[in-house]
């Protein structure tokens, strides 16, 4: 709780995806995600900034905004954006 | 060679699993008039405790512990041949041991059993997932000195408190020492439920049982 990025509130889910799928260490994963999102590492943990970024990119937000991509639709965008394979997205395709 | 040197070398024999040297040392020590009981307590048992400590530190492994325990049994038997019949103790104490019901984790319990046996205690193993009543029944049946229970989960740990109460209800709580162990157990837990001994690992269990039964 005290040291976590907190998932889709920020970019925690994206950083964890890079660790799992590409075995990236923390800093490498953060730099990779920041680059793909067109931002910096500091911003990845900023809820205020990340809400806008996530909305703009259509990768899902923590608030249930009507019309915003959620679930599988958001993950399809994440796979494209981070250039990784997400198994359930591949299954859908 | 001083008696202390003999004890130290005998302890080394147990640790190194050196039966020939151990047997030779015992023969010579007995011939020199060294007290057989001290040979067991200060030499062989000290070696077995060291074996337990090394296992707890990951320096030696279960097969070596088992081999050391087997050697210990052989060497103790050899020493006991020289203890006058009237002075021989059948065992250092009788211990009823088990993993409480609802809990199937018995690895730690089995290691405790081996070390206790190697240190001269008679262990009545109830196995894993042992009904609570079996602790009380077996304690009564064998006139146990210690009732020891292991629990690896916070849910099953509560049964250790039940054993305390059941021993009281059976009227034998004052006749036995109780020992608790297992990952979630702590000294605070022991105090809370009124058990006599908390052991954090197998060699700790041996030392604590020894202390409990001599006090």
């Amino acid at each position: 709780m005290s040291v976590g990025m907190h998932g889709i509130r920020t970019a925690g889910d994206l950083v964890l995806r890079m660790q799992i799928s590409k075995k990236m260490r923390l800093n490498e994963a953060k730099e990779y995600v920041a680059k793909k999102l067109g931002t910096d590492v500091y911003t990845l943990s900023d809820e205020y900034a990340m809400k806008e970024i996530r909305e703009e990119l259509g990768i899902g937000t923590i608030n249930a905004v009507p019309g915003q991509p959620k679930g599988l639709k958001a993950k399809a965008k994440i796979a494209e954006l981070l250039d990784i394979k997400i198994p359930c997205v591949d299954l859908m395709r | 060679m001083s008696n202390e040197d003999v004890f130290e070398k005998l302890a080394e024999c147990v640790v190194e699993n050196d039966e020939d040297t151990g047997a030779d040392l015992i023969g010579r020590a007995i011939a020199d008039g060294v007290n057989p009981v001290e040979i067991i307590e200060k030499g062989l048992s000290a070696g077995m405790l060291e074996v337990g400590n090394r296992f707890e530190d990951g320096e030696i492994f279960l097969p070596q512990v088992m081999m050391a325990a087997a050697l210990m049994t052989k060497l103790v038997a050899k020493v006991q041949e020289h203890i006058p019949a009237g002075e021989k103790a059948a065992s250092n104490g009788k211990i009823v041991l088990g993993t409480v019901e609802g809990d199937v984790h018995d690895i730690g319990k089995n290691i405790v059993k081996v070390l206790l046996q190697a240190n001269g205690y008679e262990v009545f193993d109830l196995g894993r997932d042992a009904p609570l009543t079996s602790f009380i029944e077996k304690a009564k049946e064998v006139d146990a000195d210690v009732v020891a229970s292991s629990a690896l989960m916070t849910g099953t740990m509560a049964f250790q408190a039940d054993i305390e109460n059941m021993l009281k209800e059976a009227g034998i709580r004052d006749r036995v020492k109780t020992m608790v162990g297992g990952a979630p157990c702590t000294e605070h837990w022991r105090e809370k439920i009124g058990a006599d001994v908390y052991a954090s690992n197998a060699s700790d269990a041996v030392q604590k049982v020894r202390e409990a039964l001599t006090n």
Partner: protein
Amino acid sequence: MSKIHTRMGDGRRVEMTREEIKAEIEDGNNNAATKGKVPSLTDDELDHLVDIFTTPERFVSVNPEDLVVMSTDVAPDTIFMNYSEYGGVGVPTDTVTAQMIAERVCGSDCVQNAFRGGNLKGTSVSIMQVRQDIEALAMNTIAPIIYTTMPNMGAYFKPDGPFDNCGDLMAAGKIKEGQETYEAIVPSIVKDAMYISEMVTSIGADCINLDTAAAAGDAEFQAVLEATEKITKELGLPVLINMSNHFVMGMHGEVEYNGKRLAGMMPHDQAKVVEESGASVYGPVVNTNTKKSVAWNVAKAAAVMKECGKQSNLPIHPNLGMGVCGAPMAEIPPIDAVSRAAKALVEVGRVDGF
């Protein structure tokens, strides 16, 4: 000298002076060096740990750029589980809802579910229900889906399984038979792990977490490593390996992986074989000593994790929770203690997540 509130490894509150806390930290660090066989922390790192433990705030954190991710330990399931040993709070809900609450309310970095009890052996007969849950999660959640299961070699012993209890065999002096039985169980664990992995990957899970690895000792660890190799090579499914104990208990004593004996292996060496097996994330453990202070335990854990991170190219996610890595052995580990442990492991242990 003023006293500072801190805690023991069993969660009890104690008061210590700054000097006493410093001595605890130095002693924990020395224990890591002697028993854990890792280099000591530097003076600066030790001073930093003292600062972490002497600050009066209840809750401590790290700089925003240092925040880490959490692969958790089936934390969402605790929302509905009714078992205190799993930290359950017993809210009557279902798996999928609990996972979504964790993702959207608690901000969990992953969606992590498991079949109740989590054993590979139990799961293999209940996999259809697991697949149904994963399918729903794949459709509705955003964070990576981690399926968690435990090898639990003990479940393969009679009467639950077909094999004799290796511990009983060993205790009866049947060492060779005990060792042979351990070896005979390994392929069964690998087979079950493969089966579960196939089932969860074919429905959309992102990875599998083989949790509490080596709980039954070195042969179980060998099974986990062999299963990981097979899962990653044949299915391409990423694997997380989380340990159960600081060092690998030598219940067999002689099993090897890639020519390295597993018994007695410390975390920094475990990290290397985990990496060789093809795993993606490694979760080491340092057991909390309940007789020592949290400061002592955290200093030890931080030294161990720092060396793990140096020896491995993989992300290191230590297990931080009830009774491990400095968190007290208490059903509700106090946040003052856990947040200090977390901060120390991030800033001194340089971990990649939890």
